[in-house]
């Protein structure tokens, strides 16, 4: 029963990790950019929702209407000012640039919000309902549903719209996409915007379920990267499956053995799987390093 409960917890929490990791994997898939600042973007999203909630009493879920477009614009701005000027060695250079962006953002957040831990505490965070003897905390269920809706939205955007077509074209062959008249710069900018907006939504849930400060971003980013690699770079469904798997593995190990071994187990499984499938669970076959 405990194990079953742990599995359910893992799936529910995995849902909103998928949201944060989805933004990362999308950005990588389109632009080969490792958004190392995704962790701090999540924290920024959490702070924005926190500020709107404490100062204007706007419900965190509702606050997304403001924070997501805001963060979308931030993403676009970061693309034009930081990523576009990179001329060569994009993968590594973008990683370094985004690392620097993250550092600056951390410094600013520290200044604005100080380094005291905060948490968004709405009255309903403590509510839960039961099915049989299984417990479903409301907040995780809401968050999970929201994540599924948002991920489905992004999925729709990718596979059912004109923008999605250009985006996928840029993903598969940027040169060819440029030749058929797709403005890959704008596609990339929008993508980073979407990725960062997803971080805003994930951050809101993170802020509801954890106390956080700017330094929380470090633990987040290492996890998100692991999820993205595990699921396969560029694969949304891979990110979802990998997040859920990661959380389920950790939670089950924590229950049946010890929390300290939860992460070890996950990393060992990660290594084993990557040795068999270097492209990750659902990733496209890795481009041969040439």
């Amino acid at each position, binding site marked *: *029963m*405990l194990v079953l*409960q*742990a599995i359910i*917890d*893992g799936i529910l*929490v995995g849902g909103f990790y998928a949201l944060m990791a989805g933004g990362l994997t999308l950005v990588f898939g389109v632009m080969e950019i490792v958004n190392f600042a995704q962790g701090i973007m999540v924290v920024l999203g959490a702070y924005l929702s926190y500020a709107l909630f404490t100062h204007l009493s706007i419900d965190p879920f509702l606050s997304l209407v403001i924070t997501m477009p805001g963060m979308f614009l931030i993403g676009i701005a970061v693309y034009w000012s930081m990523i576009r000027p990179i001329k060569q060695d994009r993968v590594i250079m973008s990683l370094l640039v985004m690392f620097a962006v993250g550092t600056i953002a*951390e*410094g600013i957040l*520290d200044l604005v919000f*100080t*380094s*005291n*831990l*905060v*948490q968004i*505490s709405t*009255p309903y*965070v*403590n*509510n*839960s309902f*039961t099915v049989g003897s299984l*417990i479903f*905390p409301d907040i995780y269920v809401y968050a999970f549903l929201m994540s599924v809706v948002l991920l489905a939205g992004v999925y729709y955007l990718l596979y059912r719209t004109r923008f999605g077509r250009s985006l996928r074209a840029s993903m598969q062959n940027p040169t060819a996409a440029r030749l058929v008249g797709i403005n890959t710069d704008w596609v990339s900018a929008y993508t980073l915007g979407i990725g960062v907006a997803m971080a805003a939504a994930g951050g809101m849930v*993170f802020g509801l*379920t*954890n*106390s*956080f*400060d*700017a*330094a*929380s971003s470090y*633990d*987040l980013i290492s996890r998100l990267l692991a999820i993205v690699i595990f699921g396969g770079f560029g694969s949304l469904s891979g990110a979802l499956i990998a997040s859920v798997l990661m*959380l389920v593995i*950790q*939670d*089950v190990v*924590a*229950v049946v053995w*010890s*929390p*300290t071994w*939860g*992460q070890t187990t996950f990393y060992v499984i990660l290594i084993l799987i990557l040795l068999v499938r270097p492209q990750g669970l659902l990733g496209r076959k890795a481009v041969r390093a040439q």
Partner: protein
Amino acid sequence: MLALAAAACGSSPSSSGTSHGPITIGVSVSLSGDFSGDGLATKQGYETWAAFQNAHGGILGRKIQMDFLSDGSSPTQVVTNYQKLITVNHVNFVLGPYSTLLTKPSSVIANRYGYVMIEAIGGGPSVFQQGLHNVFDVSASAKYQLITFAKWLVATHKPEDVAYASMTDPFLQPMLDGARAYLSAHGFTSVVYKLYPLETTDYTPIASVIAASKAPVVVLGTMPPDGYAFIQDFIQDRYSPKVLIEASGPDQGTAFVKAVGANNTGGIMVPNTWFPGSTYYQNSAMVSLYIKMFGGTANNISADVAEAFSAGQVLTQAVDHIKSTSNSALEHYLHSGAMFQSVQGPVKFLPDGENSAATPFVFQWQHGTLEDVLPAGVGHPVPILAVKPAWGAGG
């Protein structure tokens, strides 16, 4: 590198070995990184102390001037910082940084330059195992932090099941292990014992294991974030233990209330060395000055503030007694078995630097305030709620 060297040398103030000018006191504080939250409170505590003391004539008739450097929670930086404070800034005294992790390397540095390190927030056992004679911890050390609670439990309850969980931390884990050893020796069964790493963000599985054990007593070695999260998870799991004590979290005043909800706080205990309403030495003055300087309310004040403040208090009393700024005289005097007073209560040092006079208190949330409940007979404790009210049953 040259620029730095020049700057480092240039920035040395008028080498204040003389008895004129202010007494300078150097501290490295963690304003960023893992300890940034507590680091800021620590800094405020030291600032409050300096302001208070300066309003009361300073030390030896000289003004106190604090010299803070930031260490980003990194031992590498803390080592550089204390060397700079001592050898470039030529501070008269140093006080301790935040956390056991950083106190250890810093006390080695202080020792190397013949400085005494009075500290308040580095009570992990490993600090005292280094064989240093210059470290003095004014707070209760880790393994004794929960002892008042454990003694009360043994005295008032039949042996029962106890669930333990702690972050793997050089301060928290020894604290939990100390309580567990004492309780197990007195017939209490340890039904859950889980350790989790610092970077854990999802505590639900640990909470559900504890909930499933239905243990009536829960002892948690937490920092504030996991301290909040466990309570939230317990409420969601509809599991309300009779006795719940957390190492840290409930002591965070309004931040705690905000995080778990006002009507869920009732009965939750926290060991502490200080509380806002304490009647110990200079406490009310400290509280009002802190509020004047940094705003907020008394309940908002972190224990880190009081801990830092007490380190300053002990320094004041010792230096006023030896009437010199000599660190060796200070070390000698602190080892003499003299008794000092602080906002956390009396202080008397063992040879290894632990405070033998420290009586860790137990505080309990009752009707929306954090009350001093244990030990009975010291100060004016409020009667303890032996059984925690159910969740949502008000404060």
